[in-house]
Structures are given as structure tokens and as C-alpha cells.
């Protein structure tokens, strides 16, 4: 134990003496939060929508068909009650819902006025805005085509605009459509991945490059402990980073943490361990710091940015890329953090993602430890 502490203390000295890296470690989240604060444009294709039709008349049928026919939407289910809509949102399978009240068609014909409700998942504000805009324009298009159709007299045509469908929009989870809600979990996924993977792999490979690794392996200090003590400072630094990001988002961006903070930290620790094992894996397959850095950057940073889902919606990607995105740990972490922080959901709603992340961690850890031991033999 004393040896372990000696080792960890030494690791911290390395970290604190390398001022530039230290500055980067803590400057990065701040810079990224500022950078990603700007809106990112999203293209939407075949977004899953749920339909709740209390009216079930010709008009609603026609509008639903229009929605279905558009390239933007794909109807996931047609439900009968509002609970199912809510459940669909919580599961994260759908991004929007359209609800027709009863007597929709009648109201429209007789009162010349009817209301339709559009609900969108606001935890992804760019997508949500785009979705609601598309939906209302589909409804407006229907209005112009059918309700003002020329089969009636010119007089009626003049009256056409009196037939009004008023879409009422509601944003779930993120009513003010704050962009921060979306990118804070993304920055968390990115920064933790970067710090852990790059820093651990570099710090282990550096020992190899310097030749100190050999000296350590010849010493009675257990190789497994070498790895543990090298990972320890980065685990702690990452947790500090996590706190910095959360404080920034709560106090600077005014984004509350809706779910359990404890759960958030537990899941983040799991994600950090995933990243640390990845770093270890990289370090066992490379011999120079440059290669380790390049591998971490190309192999980790890029996929994390692309496939986590906070920059580019995964559902709009071609199928092969969607499949690839499943092996990116950041994707699952992003879903989990979004659920906890923004939707305020508990473990019951995220256990599946957490389990996937846990499985990945175990796999990576086992693989890297095995590789590390093989190198020793």
C-alpha cells in the first residue's frame, strides 16, 4: 500500500510539473463549452414520430398520410392514450409526437378552426425546432391544398383562410430550447474521453520510451499496480474536470441537473474507467508517445465527436454508420447523461445503456490487461 501511494504521488508530480498539459486539461472543457455554445445545424430524415388521434376522421387521416409520406418523418406507432406517448418519449425512441383532439375534423368544418398539438423532444433543441417547423409546414400545406380547393366558388376560396388549423407546440424536457442542454453532456463525453485515453496512453508509453518501464517491471512492484497507479491521477483529474463542467453549466449556462447527482457521478466514473482501459489498450500496442497521441486523437476523438450524437444526429446517418456508432462508448454515455441531467430520469430508464457501457468496460479492461501481460511474457 505504501508503495502504491509512493507511486501515485510520483504520478501527480509528473502531471503538475507539466504545466502546458495541465493547462490544456482544464482549459479544454471551458473552451469547448464556449465553442459548442453556438448552434449546430442539423438535417432531419425519417425521424420517428408517434401519432395520437382522438378524432379519427378524414382530415386527420389525410394529414397523417402527408406526414407519413414526407421524407422527414416515419410513423413509429399510432397510440390510443397519452401515457403511451409519454412512455415513447422516455424510451428515447421517438423525437416528436402529433396529437389530434377529438372532433378535429368537425371543428375544422363547422367552427373553421381546429387545434393540433405537436410535441417534440427538446433535449435536442436543434432537432426539435426543425421537427416542429416541418410538421407545421406539412399541416399548412394540407390546409392550402385541400381546404381551399377550387371545387368551391371563388367566394369560398376567398374564405379559405378562415379554415384554420392552429398547431400548438410543446417542448418536452427543455421548454426554453437551451442549446446548452444538448452540448454539455456532449462536452462531458468528449473531454473525459480525451483526458483519459490520451493522457493515460501517453503517460504509460512515456515510461516505455524513457526505459523506466523496464526498471519498474524488474522491481518487485506488481505490473497491475503500475497500471492502477498510472490511471489513478487521471481518474481524479477527470472527476475534477467533471465538477468544473457541471459547475460551469449550472452557474454560467443556467442549466440545472434534473436527475440524481450521485447517479451522474457513478455513471461518469464508469465511463472514465472505460476511457482509461482504452488508453491502456492503446499504450500496450504502441511504443512511442507520438503514435499514442495520434491513435488517441484519430481513434478516439474523431469517433467520439462524430458518433456520440451531439453534433450529428445518429438517426440521420446511413445504416452502416449507425451500426458503427454502437461501439462508440461516448454514444451510450451521452444518452445516459442526457437522460439524467436533462430528463431527470433514474437508473430504471438508463439501465440498458449503463449495462452496455459496463460490458464495454469489462471487455476493454480484460483485453488490455491480457495484452499487457502478454508483453511481459
Amino acid at each position, binding site marked *: 500500500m505504501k*508503495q502504491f501511494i509512493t507511486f501515485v504521488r*510520483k504520478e501527480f508530480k*509528473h502531471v503538475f*510539473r*507539466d504545466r502546458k498539459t495541465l493547462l490544456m486539461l482544464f482549459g479544454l472543457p471551458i473552451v469547448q463549452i464556449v465553442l459548442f455554445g453556438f448552434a449546430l445545424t442539423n438535417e432531419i430524415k425519417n425521424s420517428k414520430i408517434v401519432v395520437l388521434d382522438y378524432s379519427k376522421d378524414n382530415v386527420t387521416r389525410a394529414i397523417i398520410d402527408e406526414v407519413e409520406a414526407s421524407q422527414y418523418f416515419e410513423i413509429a406507432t399510432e397510440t390510443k392514450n397519452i401515457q403511451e406517448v409519454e412512455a415513447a418519449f422516455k424510451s428515447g425512441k421517438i423525437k416528436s409526437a402529433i396529437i389530434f383532439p377529438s372532433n378535429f375534423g368537425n371543428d375544422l368544418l363547422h367552427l373553421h378552426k381546429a387545434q393540433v398539438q405537436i410535441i417534440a423532444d427538446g433535449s435536442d433543441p436543434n432537432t426539435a425546432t426543425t421537427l416542429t417547423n416541418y410538421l407545421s409546414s406539412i399541416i399548412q400545406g394540407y390546409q392550402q391544398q385541400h381546404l381551399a380547393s377550387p371545387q368551391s366558388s371563388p367566394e369560398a376560396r376567398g374564405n379559405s383562410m378562415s379554415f384554420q388549423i392552429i398547431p400548438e407546440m410543446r417542448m418536452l424536457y427543455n421548454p426554453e430550447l437551451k442549446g446548452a442542454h444538448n452540448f454539455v453532456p456532449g462536452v462531458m463525453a468528449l473531454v473525459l474521453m480525451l483526458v483519459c485515453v490520451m493522457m493515460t496512453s501517453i503517460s504509460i508509453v512515456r515510461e516505455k520510451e524513457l*526505459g523506466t518501464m*523496464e*526498471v519498474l517491471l524488474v522491481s518487485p512492484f506488481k505490473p497491475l499496480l503500475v497500471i492502477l497507479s498510472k490511471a489513478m491521477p487521471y481518474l481524479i483529474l477527470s472527476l475534477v474536470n467533471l465538477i468544473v463542467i457541471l459547475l460551469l453549466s449550472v452557474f454560467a449556462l443556467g442549466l440545472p441537473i434534473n436527475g440524481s447527482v450521485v447517479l451522474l457521478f457513478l455513471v461518469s466514473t464508469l465511463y472514465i474507467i472505460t476511457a482509461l482501459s482504452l488508453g491502456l489498450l492503446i499504450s500496450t500496442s504502441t511504443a512511442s508517445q507520438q503514435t499514442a497521441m495520434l491513435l488517441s486523437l484519430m481513434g478516439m476523438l474523431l469517433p467520439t465527436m462524430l458518433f456520440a450524437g451531439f453534433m450529428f444526429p445518429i438517426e440521420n446517418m446511413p445504416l452502416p454508420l449507425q451500426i458503427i456508432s454502437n461501439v462508440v462508448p461516448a454514444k451510450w454515455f451521452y444518452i445516459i447523461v442526457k437522460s439524467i441531467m436533462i430528463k431527470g430520469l433514474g437508473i430504471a430508464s438508463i439501465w440498458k445503456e449503463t449495462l452496455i457501457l459496463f460490458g464495454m468496460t469489462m471487455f476493454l479492461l480484460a483485453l488490455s490487461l491480457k495484452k499487457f501481460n502478454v508483453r*511481459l511474457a
Partner: protein
Amino acid sequence: MHRSKIVSLNYSSKMSGEIVIQANQLTKQFGDFIAANSITFEVYKGEIFGFLGANGAGKTTAMRMLCGLSSPSSGQATVAGFDVRTQPEEIKKNIGYMSQKFSLYEDLTVAENIQFFGGIYGLSNKHLKAKSEELINQLGLQSAKGQLVGSLPLGWKQKLSFSIAILHQPKVVFLDEPTGGVDPVTRRQFWDLIYQAAESGITVFVTTHYMDEAEYCNRISIMVDGRIEALDSPSGLKKRFNVSSMDEVFYQLARKAKRSDN
């Protein structure tokens, strides 16, 4: 002056005759490639044993097996009385090691490096403090105690590195080409440290490329293509090959080698 020391050391080691390293038919095979082919030798307590060979001759492989870093494919070896196959952890406690790359942390100070390496060998704080004091005085590094190791001249680093390798009073110290890139004067000073260590009873196992260093050893073995082709005292070898310098002995043996680097 080194000559006389060698003679006296040679004498004392033969007197004690205690075997510290024993290798018997030690072999390491990587697929079809036999890196170390059935090597057999003994090293006595307090001896300076030179391990020579061209690049790729199998020196490092043999040394790794003796350090417990790599398990032999066949054959046996004991180091400090422990079996390399079954007791590598015990061996690690009883040996010191200095690699061919300079192997201290450049971003730590002299004192911190001593503390760290002493610490991972489990030396107590009190013991460590006394030891590091002694070591710093011995090397004349009092003024540089708080300096980062990276700012020291290479010669000092190497001497410090060696002193740290024997900080925990190991039975054997393995030196893998310890003096690479150091000027002749510093190399000589470095060898003074090696003699001191040997006199205190630490067995020194050293690989080298420099033939003048080979002359400093009590006995040397020369590896060619994974086998030990010759093993004797420098004077014995010169007599056997009927030449006047170790350079010529080495050249005669090494040119028979079929494999080179890689």
C-alpha cells in the same frame, strides 16, 4: 589502477566461490527463432561478469530471463538462489537493474527519484532518508539535490541511475549497456562505482559493446547467434585466441555470426 583491482577481486571471488547466478541449458525460443540457445554459465558472488555479443546475439533475451521478465522455453536458471521459472517475484526483490536507456524521471528532482525508487522497493522512510543522504554525499551531488534530474549532465545521471539501482542492496545488479553515449573519463568514473559495489559484495552482471570495458570485467562471456562461444577471464581469452586485445577476440568470434540485428 583498475588492473590491480581486477586481480584482487578475481582472487576474492574465487575464494568465496558462492554461486549467485546459475544458468543451465537456458533456452528461449520465439517460434522458429532461437534467441538464446542452451546457454550454461555460473556467476560468483562479488564478481563482475561481462556479457558480450553483437546486436541480436541474444544478450537482452538472456538477461530478461534472468531478471524474471521472461520465462525460459527450456532449461533452468537460478538467481540469488531463486528459480527464474517459479520464483520471479523473489528474484525481483533481490536484484537491481539499470537499462541501456537512461532510466530516471527527468521531471523529478534527484531526491525525489531516490525516494521513489527506494519507495517501490519497500524501503522504510527512515532508512531511505539516511540512504539518500549517504548516496548524495557519495556522488557529490549535495548542490544538485533539489534540481530536476533532466538538468544534470549525462555522466551524473548515469552514476545516479546506477546508485539508485543498488540502493536496496541487491544481491545482483544487472546493467544493460550502462555507459552508452558517455565520454571515456565519465565511463571510468562509472566503473569505479561498479568496483565499489562489487567490493561490497554485490554481484555485477553487465552487458557492453565497449571492449575496454570488457577488460575491466573479472570474466566475460561472448554470445554469438544465441550461444555462448567463449567464457573466460579477459587474459585467458586473449591467450586462447593468441591475440593482444579483446577487440580481436571479439572480432574473431563475432564474424562467425550468421544473424544480425532484428
